[in-house]
């Protein structure tokens, strides 16, 4: 634990981009019902450019459902999700996942979803779907334009793998990676789509304290390097308290508290619902 202090007023948020502070994602009273059950009800949350925000809550609180709504896996039953990129604000609620990805939201999955039978390098190459400069004809006949673009795709993929410490495993099958490496590869794959907002679903799940600590540093450095805003779901309170500037606490599909880690950890409702029972902070 090199930096135990919460970074609620840390430097990253204010200095990162020219337009820091501008609202990037605005979720307005979003509800999602499955049959008679509402997994998420009236959830509102905002993420500003460059922020690192945590979404926490007990099991079954609806955290992953929020992610799935943000990435278009299913549309919200009510409410609006507005995302801003290049000064253009759009309602992305109910948009197809590939379009939301193109708009600039990347994600990882709680239960790792890699292309397990493919190589590590191919996993990242596939994610470089946007801005492929050649068409179907070039793809079928491997024109010089195709080769030039492919070399660049491999270069960029290897660069990302290098950042994630996976360069030496580029040729390995994804299923043969260690658990931690698989989580790293998922992040590399998400970064390959060039997101401005990265959603991490329990990035530290299954990691030991040393690995978690490394991951914490990695997330911080990625945010600087790629000028990312990050929303992460996490059960590991040491990670959440260390790097998140703000937290939203979800319980039974409702936001019961939000604010800086210190505020949240003292919030009576949170203690009642979650922290008091399960986590050691």
């Amino acid at each position, binding site marked *: 634990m090199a930096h135990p202090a919460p970074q609620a007023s840390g430097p990253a948020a204010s200095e990162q981009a020219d337009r820091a502070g501008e609202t990037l994602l605005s979720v307005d009273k979003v509800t999602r019902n499955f049959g008679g059950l509402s997994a998420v009800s009236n959830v509102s949350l905002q993420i500003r450019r460059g922020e690192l925000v945590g979404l926490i809550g007990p099991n079954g609180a609806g955290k992953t459902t929020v992610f799935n709504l943000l990435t278009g896996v299913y549309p919200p039953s009510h409410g609006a999700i507005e995302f801003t990129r290049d000064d253009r604000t759009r309602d992305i609620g109910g948009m197809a996942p590939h379009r939301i990805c193109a708009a600039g939201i990347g994600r990882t*999955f709680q239960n790792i*979803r*890699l292309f397990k039978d493919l190589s590590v390098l191919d996993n990242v190459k596939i994610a470089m*779907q946007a801005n492929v400069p050649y068409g179907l004809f070039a793809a079928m006949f491997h024109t010089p334009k195709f*080769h030039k673009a492919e070399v660049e795709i*491999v270069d960029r993929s*290897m660069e990302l793998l290098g950042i994630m410490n996976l360069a030496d495993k580029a*040729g390995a099958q994804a299923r043969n990676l260690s658990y931690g490496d698989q989580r790293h590869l998922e992040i590399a794959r998400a970064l390959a*789509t060039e997101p401005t907002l990265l959603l991490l679903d329990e990035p530290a799940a299954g990691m030991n304290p040393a690995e978690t600590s490394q991951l914490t540093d990695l997330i911080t450095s990625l945010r600087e390097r790629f000028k990312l805003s990050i929303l992460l779901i996490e059960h590991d309170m040491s990670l959440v308290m260390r790097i998140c500037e703000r937290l939203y606490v979800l319980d039974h599909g409702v936001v019961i508290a939000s604010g800086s880690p210190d505020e949240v950890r003292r919030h009576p409702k949170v203690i009642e619902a979650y922290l008091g029972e399960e986590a050691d902070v």
Partner: protein
Amino acid sequence: MKKGLVSFLVKAVPLLAAWAIVLVLINAGIVTDYYLATMATICINIVLAVSLNLITGFTGQFSLGHAGFMAIGAYTCAMVTMAEPSVLGFVGGLLGGGVLAALVGLLVGLPTLRLRGDYLAIATLGMAEIIRIILLNQDATNGAAGLSGIPAFLDWNWMFFLTVATVWIIANFLHSSQGRACISVREDEIAAESIGVHTVRSKVLAFMIGAFFAGIAGGMYASYFYFIKPDLFGFLKSVDILVIVVLGGLGSLSGSIIAAILLALISTALQPFPELRMIIYSLALVVIMIFRPQGLMGSREVSLGVLNRFRRREPAVATASAAPAIRRDDDEEVV
């Protein structure tokens, strides 16, 4: 680019040699029409199996309608060459059949490729039956009697280069961004969507390309065997093609090629025993499936000739020098 040229020659020379040797043998009268017919069957089956493998093996969409696309190509090519019996007519009929099959693939694919698994298989099966019934009930296609006396243009040169071109184009496609997107759909559709892959478009694209080459294969069939009827393109034909793909390995182009050759050879070798032929053929399939349930090749590729570009890379790059090794490999592919 000198290295690229060498690499190209490594692939091209064995293929050209194979083509030239057979050509010489045909001219010398050693390869008779009987053997040539077997080779035509092999070539047509390779085109069919490789194109179905693109849909089923690489994109993961279980299709039972490949014979339907083949029928469209066969009838188009037959009718065009009968109206215009020249090489131009043949090429026009071949391409026209492929394009028509691809368009039908688009029409059928748009609604059905939103279905998954079993549903898609049933929908494509239905489509192939509809095509067969239409051909059966049209005056222009001469109903159940079929079309005969189709001008024969498909000689060894045509069949060889059409087959090589098909494998080359599909292998190229699979190694492009669009092809990788198709493979990602097979691997995990939800993950693919989340990284920006337009999954429906990828599936429809693979389906159309597969249909196009099935149409080409149909045209090749019509032109070589100069007689076609709707019954040739029934459900069993679709299953035959699927057997080749599964036997060779879902997701292996070279597997499809090897299986197409192997099955044709087994079938030819058993010609003298007509009463035992289907029994032994079926037994061979059962035995292979017991001992190689993933198919002869699994999802592996052999590095030979044009398939050189398609080999898997892990063994070569599983060391610390991974990055430069991969770079070199890709450079080599510059032809």
